[in-house]
């Protein structure tokens, strides 16, 4: 599959279209129901066929990275919850793992296992939301897509209920801190997790029946939005988008964080390089993550959940000397990296610079390649299959 496909030229090339034809420029978004927030894609259309597509992110830019420089390490966790608002748990983990590495703080084994458990639960919740919105994109908000979205949200609610039981919040949890976790597993929670995920696991077959077994769904996804493997690597795609292009790369296995060195992960890869390939990868990950959750929840080791005192004074965590670290962890969308420069005499408790590497931003850069030659209908299908979260793209 990889390497042999001819590359689309993302730039408007006068040789490629009839220069006498009238091109229509169409702004898709930022106020458009299917752009997953506020993405603007400028389309140059010949009839309904896309000649050129230029994505313009930035409508949700909040200057978070600057804000992080003004806060201490302890205060930052609830802020990064709002980056990728579909998987806040993993955002917290990413930034805290980076801070721990920067400050040289050890994380107890129980906390690492709990983080793994929460990450996999969040991955299921995030992929469920993705499946719902993806089918919504290709199936219509007034139609079959909406039905499947209601089903996936029904399952996602179960996971949010579990998070609420654990942390008290349904969405922005603030449950991770430098050195471990803030909330220990309550009595009976493990049983609830088992029940919920057994149910969710049994329902994945229904989704397959409604999508994978549906001829129209296949017509809309197979060979649509092709991103060859070499292009995907060049653009820095990660996560399911990369694995859907046939590249076997998963940080959970290749650069284990949390407790993934003790917990083997079966990585799903699909050689389709198209929307369907990415769909199949995420569906396989749904299954795999459900299996992981059911495995982990029975085996969380005993012990402390935090190596530091669980207090909330702003200057709680201090870094003695100026250093920089980069840590990437596998979020549901790919490599969520955090690059921190911090420490030193004058800025001991706050980072000097904190750069987030969002996987979705890099996925956006594939749009000019993947959209050319398709029709407007496929814009939303391709965009949905890349699973962008604008809060994370723009920060």
């Amino acid at each position, binding site marked *: 599959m990889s390497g042999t496909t001819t590359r689309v030229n993302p730039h408007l090339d006068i040789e490629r279209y009839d220069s006498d034809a009238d091109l*229509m420029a*169409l702004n898709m978004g930022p106020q*458009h*129901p*299917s752009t997953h927030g506020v993405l603007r894609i400028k389309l140059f259309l010949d009839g*309904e066929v896309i000649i050129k597509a230029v994505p313009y992110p930035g409508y949700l830019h909040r200057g978070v990275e600057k804000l992080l420089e003004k806060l201490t390490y302890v205060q930052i966790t609830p802020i990064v919850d709002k980056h990728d608002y579909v998987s806040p748990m993993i955002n917290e983990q990413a930034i805290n793992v980076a801070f721990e590495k920067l400050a040289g703080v050890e994380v107890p084994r129980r906390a690492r296992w709990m983080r793994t458990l929460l990450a996999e639960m969040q991955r299921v919740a995030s992929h469920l939301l993705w499946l719902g919105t993806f*089918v*919504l*994109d*290709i*199936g*219509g*908000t*007034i*139609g*079959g*897509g*909406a*039905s499947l979205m*209601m*089903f996936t949200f*029904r399952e996602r609610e179960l996971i949010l209920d579990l998070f609420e039981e654990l942390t008290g919040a349904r969405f922005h949890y603030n449950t991770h801190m430098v050195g471990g976790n803030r909330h220990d597993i309550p009595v009976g929670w493990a049983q609830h997790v088992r029940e919920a995920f057994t149910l969710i696991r049994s329902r994945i077959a229904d989704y397959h029946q*409604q999508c994978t077994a*549906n001829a*129209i*769904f296949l*017509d*809309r996804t197979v060979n649509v939005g092709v991103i060859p493997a070499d292009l995907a690597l060049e653009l820095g795609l990660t996560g399911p988008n990369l694995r859907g292009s046939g590249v076997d790369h998963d940080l959970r296995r290749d650069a284990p964080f949390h407790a993934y060195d003790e917990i083997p992960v079966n990585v799903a890869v699909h050689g389709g390089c198209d929307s369907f390939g990415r769909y199949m990868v995420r569906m396989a990950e749904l299954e795999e993550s459900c299996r992981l959750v059911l495995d982990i929840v029975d085996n969380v080791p005993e012990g402390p959940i935090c190596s530091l005192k669980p207090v909330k004074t702003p200057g709680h965590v201090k870094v003695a000397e100026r250093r920089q670290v980069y840590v990437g962890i596998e979020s549901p969308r790919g490599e969520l990296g955090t690059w921190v420069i911090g420490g030193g005499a004058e800025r001991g408790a706050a980072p000097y610079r904190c750069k987030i590497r969002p996987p979705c931003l890099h996925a956006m850069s594939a749009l000019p390649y993947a959209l050319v030659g398709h*029709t*407007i*209908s*496929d*814009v*939303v299908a391709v965009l949905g299959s890349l699973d962008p979260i604008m809060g994370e793209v723009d920060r």
Partner: protein
Amino acid sequence: MNPWLHGAVYGAGLLGFMMTVGALASWYERKFTAVVQNRLGPNVVGPFGVYQPIADAIKMLRKEEIIPRDADRPLYLLAPWIPTFLVLISAAAVPFGGYYAADGHWQSTWLVADLDLGVLWLLAVSGLMVFPIWMAGWSGNNKYALLAGMRMVAQGISYEIPMVLTALVPVIAVGSMSISDIVAYQAEHGWLIWKLPGIGLVAFVFFYLASLAESNRIPFDIPEAESELVGGVLVEYTGMRFGIVLLSEYLHTLVASIVASALFLGGGHMPFLSAMLPWWTAPIFMLLKVGALFFSIYWVRWSWVRYRADQLMELCWYWMVPISLAMVMATALMVTGGWL
């Protein structure tokens, strides 16, 4: 009865029926969708939320009418009303009732006008439906609406062909273009969906699919395509003009169900039962058939995703048109061969 008086009385009756059912259809669809999606649906206004359509209509009447500055005003203002009008008049030639006369022949009743060319009338009127949608798409001065209008024209004209061809199958089999004749033939010789071996069923399915495409229902709702074209031709419309187009779409699916049940499912006739039961059961049987077809439209709509415009054309021109042509010829051969 004086034909003018007859037309006025039955026309008013049909209008009232269609408007009531059109309003109820939106409630019915929302309730049905709620069942599909594990929700409650409308449940506040009236028993089981049945007055919700009235509340919605009042809300829409009170909304601000926004007319884009650069809109083509006459076309823009006129466009929403035409499809409703066309849909309402197209059902005029369909008989809703009927009974076995003393001589054993089926006598169709409850129709506004017994046209000799009833099928042609239906097809002609539904062929006009493209124009108001294109008017709406063009006049709003919106690129999304324009694209949707172009899609609608392409789709409407393409699906017109299998629709006409499959409608010809009962016409050829019966030898008449009058819908009451077609219904009477089915009452006496069996429903056409079974009567023509194989062809009847396929023709019925194709006719129904083409009607779905004409009335913009998923999987053929690409002109509306709210997740791509933000509502298609309706994107600039507000208030009651928006509501009236939605109403006309409900009416269109309703008319499609009525016509399909008259042409292929024997109209108000029900085997065995009609001979035993009095005349007033025929409209009930008709409504049952229409309701079943109507139900299936929404069942499909709320479980499937939609086709892309080019795939829709492919389906029409590669599959439906050739097969429909073959079916028309096969029916003609059967009729000339005397096998029917």
